[in-house]
């Protein structure tokens, strides 16, 4: 007799319970990796100016020489209270960094996803439909190249071509310096703020600044999607229900567009969730290349300054997002597919 499967509720609760150890392992890793890495905020800032004794005094006064276990317990206690602390180097509450710079990343990643979906699904469907044709080979090649190309390299090429050579698009920042100054920030999402501001010149300036970074990051994600969508189209085209549709005399266009493509996209939705982590790591590189003041950009800056508190806070935030999205995808999967149970 087959063992009865557990309920969806049990699965969801178990999956939820697993989040805590996952988060704890991640936080612990981040904490100790930051401490094992050489340097501290005082040395990073003043190591070339002060005698060693003076540096040590300052490290002591700031508490950087406290026993690791004490620092670790303090850290976990603060995270448990959702208190990410205040950055060491510039005294900003980490929550402010997450809100202000996170909004810039959200704006970038949203539009990058739009580009990724438009290009990835569009070209993937086309390649699947035109299997083994010249177009299929070109699209596959394109997918491999954009996926394999590092974000900073693709971004740099785009800057050279569209910024320096052609002069069509701005190459850095979220807006021109004066627009950035004058634009009132309500949501920290510049496109929305520009709409609220009601100034179309400002809106246009923001859109122009968004194109290259969003396209760069989006194309990299699109590289994965192209191949995934193509494979799914090929598989669905072999499905019995497609044969049946053809046998019933439904015209080929309807078979492909209404039956095959629609079903080919179902697994893509699941994979999209997993792309969030890729999107986040890609955002760090893209933001650095395009001087985009997102959370990845700040992460690099704080890493360079050995600002433990800021780095820990930002990475914890990244981790929470990835864990939340993974959880969501698992729930959706389990809901759709009854075989997915513990």
């Amino acid at each position, binding site marked *: 007799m087959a063992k009865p499967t557990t309920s969806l509720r049990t699965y969801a609760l178990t999956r939820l319970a697993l989040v805590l150890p996952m988060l704890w392992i991640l936080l612990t890793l981040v904490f100790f990796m930051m401490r094992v890495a050489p*340097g501290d905020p005082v040395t990073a800032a*003043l190591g*070339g100016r002060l*005698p060693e004794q003076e540096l040590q005094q300052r490290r002591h006064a700031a508490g950087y020489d406290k026993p690791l276990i004490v620092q670790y317990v303090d850290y976990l206690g603060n995270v448990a209270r959702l208190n990410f602390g205040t950055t060491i180097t*510039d005294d900003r509450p980490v929550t402010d960094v997450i809100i202000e710079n996170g909004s810039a990343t959200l704006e970038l990643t949203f539009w990058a996803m739009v580009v990724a979906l*438009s290009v990835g699904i569009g070209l993937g469907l086309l390649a699947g439909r035109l299997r083994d044709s010249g177009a299929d080979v070109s699209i596959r090649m394109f997918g491999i190249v954009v996926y394999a190309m590092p974000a900073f390299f693709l971004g740099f090429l785009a800057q050279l071509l569209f910024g320096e050579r052609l002069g069509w698009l701005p190459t850095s920042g979220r807006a021109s310096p004066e627009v950035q*100054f004058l634009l009132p920030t309500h949501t920290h999402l510049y496109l929305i703020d520009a709409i609220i501001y009601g100034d179309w010149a400002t809106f246009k300036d923001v859109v122009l600044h968004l194109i290259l970074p969003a396209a760069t990051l989006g194309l990299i994600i699109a590289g994965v999607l192209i191949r995934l969508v193509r494979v799914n189209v090929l598989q669905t085209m072999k499905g019995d229900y497609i044969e049946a549709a053809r046998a019933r005399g439904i015209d080929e266009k309807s078979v492909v567009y209404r039956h095959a493509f629609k079903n080919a996209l179902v697994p893509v939705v699941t994979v999209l969730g997993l792309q969030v982590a890729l999107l986040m790591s890609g955002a760090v590189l893209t933001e650095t290349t395009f001087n985009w003041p997102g959370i990845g950009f700040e992460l690099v800056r704080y890493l360079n300054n050995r600002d433990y508190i800021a780095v820990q806070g930002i990475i914890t935030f990244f981790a929470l997002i990835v864990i939340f999205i993974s959880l969501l995808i698992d729930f959706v999967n389990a809901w759709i597919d009854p075989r997915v149970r513990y």
Partner: protein
Amino acid sequence: MRTRTSRGLRLFVLAAAVVALAAGCGSSSGSSSGGSGGGGGNSDATIIMGTTDTAIHFDPANAYDLHSWNIIYNVYDELMTIPPGGNKPVPSLATSCGWDDPKTYTCHLRSGVKFQNGDPLTSKDVEFSFQRSIVINGDQGACYLFSSLATCGKWKGNEISTPDPQTVTFHLTQPDATWPFILATGAAAIVPSSVYPATKLQPDDQPIGTGPYKLVKYQPGVQTVLERNDAYWGTPAKNARVLIQYYKDTPSLKLAIQGGDVDIAFRNLTPTDISSLRGQSGLQVVEGQGIEIRYLVFNVKLPPSDQLAVRRSIAYLIDRQSIAHNVYNDTVQPLYSMVPAGLFGHIDSYKTEYGATPNPDLAKKELTDAGINTPVPITIWWTPTHYGGGSADEYTEIKRELEGSGLFKVTLKSEEWDQYAVDRGKDIFPAFQLGWFPDYPDADDYSAYFYPNGGFWNGHYDNPQIDKAIDQEKASTDPSVREAAFAKIQTLAAKDAPTIPIWQGKQIAVVRDGVSGVQETFDPAYIFRFWLISKT
């Protein structure tokens, strides 16, 4: 379900269309990428400066980096200042300052000066400013510059007296001729006692000073905006607003100045960038005197640097002109003393001792006379990014020069700054790269931190004659006494070569046509005086 999927696809298509539309907008208007409106005459202009520097703090109690100090110089005032083109302090918020005796320094304040919040400046504000800097003792601050006044973190209460609202007297613990210079640094900026917390830092987006600009916006890592202080007590700024735009790296900054996004690119374009921008239409490269230096330090406890002949032999072999020209495209100049050219008291002591160009014969003689077998193996340490991207080429060139003589076998080793800054104090580097940026434009800043007690870098070199000369120059306000003391320090140091000066940097900015005043602010004080910049 069908409807939902179709709607989703339509959304994607719509989104793609928006992107395409935006791209279309870009192509049609891209040629007007100048970006900055500015507009109007000089006094209404907005100046946009791009930089890869980052701001740390705008509270004088916790700032000790060039960019933060430059914002402080423009928002606050100090009792003394270095005037444009000068290298000696003159009264600023004070009308006069002078020595009552070698340990007592009195300043009389300018009357009618108000802070940007409307409060009048009094001597109590001056006392409060120094007291809070010393009490707060910020871990990224420059409190130790006030060591002649008090020990950081400890305020006894008798360090400063304020007999009336317009008079301030500093009671130093030891004679210190550099005190007027220290009063001109960003660390000595005056803050309002009615607003600033006595034991905590003021938020960086709310600085209040008496300076020519008010800070109106600060987005860390993105932008700082200054607007002219119309109630300023001095000559008003030549522009209405300054936008400082922060760039992560030099390629972005270079593209920004080329594309017209910024009017001025100041720090830190690479020598290659500067060469490629030189002569481009619409741009000018402005150069000025700089006193930032790079040098090689020997740990005189570790072999082979513990042998005088080895250090002197290396001093004979280093070709500074080749480094300045081939590595840095002449954006730096050869340095023949630890005190850079342009400062009072500078002499080319290494040129006198070892010549302007390499001399392999005398280098060999030093080693032969000392009975040292050649080639001498030596490990030289350097750090890849902290002192600029040219460091790798610079030290490869030094290795080439030393090995080219047949007298040395050089092993180059490098570490990133975070580890390097820790290891340099641990007696494991026999020879290593360092650099120095001035706190104040006086030769004392290039002597007092370098030689007593083995130098701040822990190189163990000790010369009582140099220590005595430093005491003399610190204690005397007589220029001739100080000049003689500095000459002695430089001459003795050149003979013993505990360090080898290599180059001193120039201040370089790239500006767009129509921008003027940058040249006027480039002097050894390293104060970027935005109030002098104008744009047509």
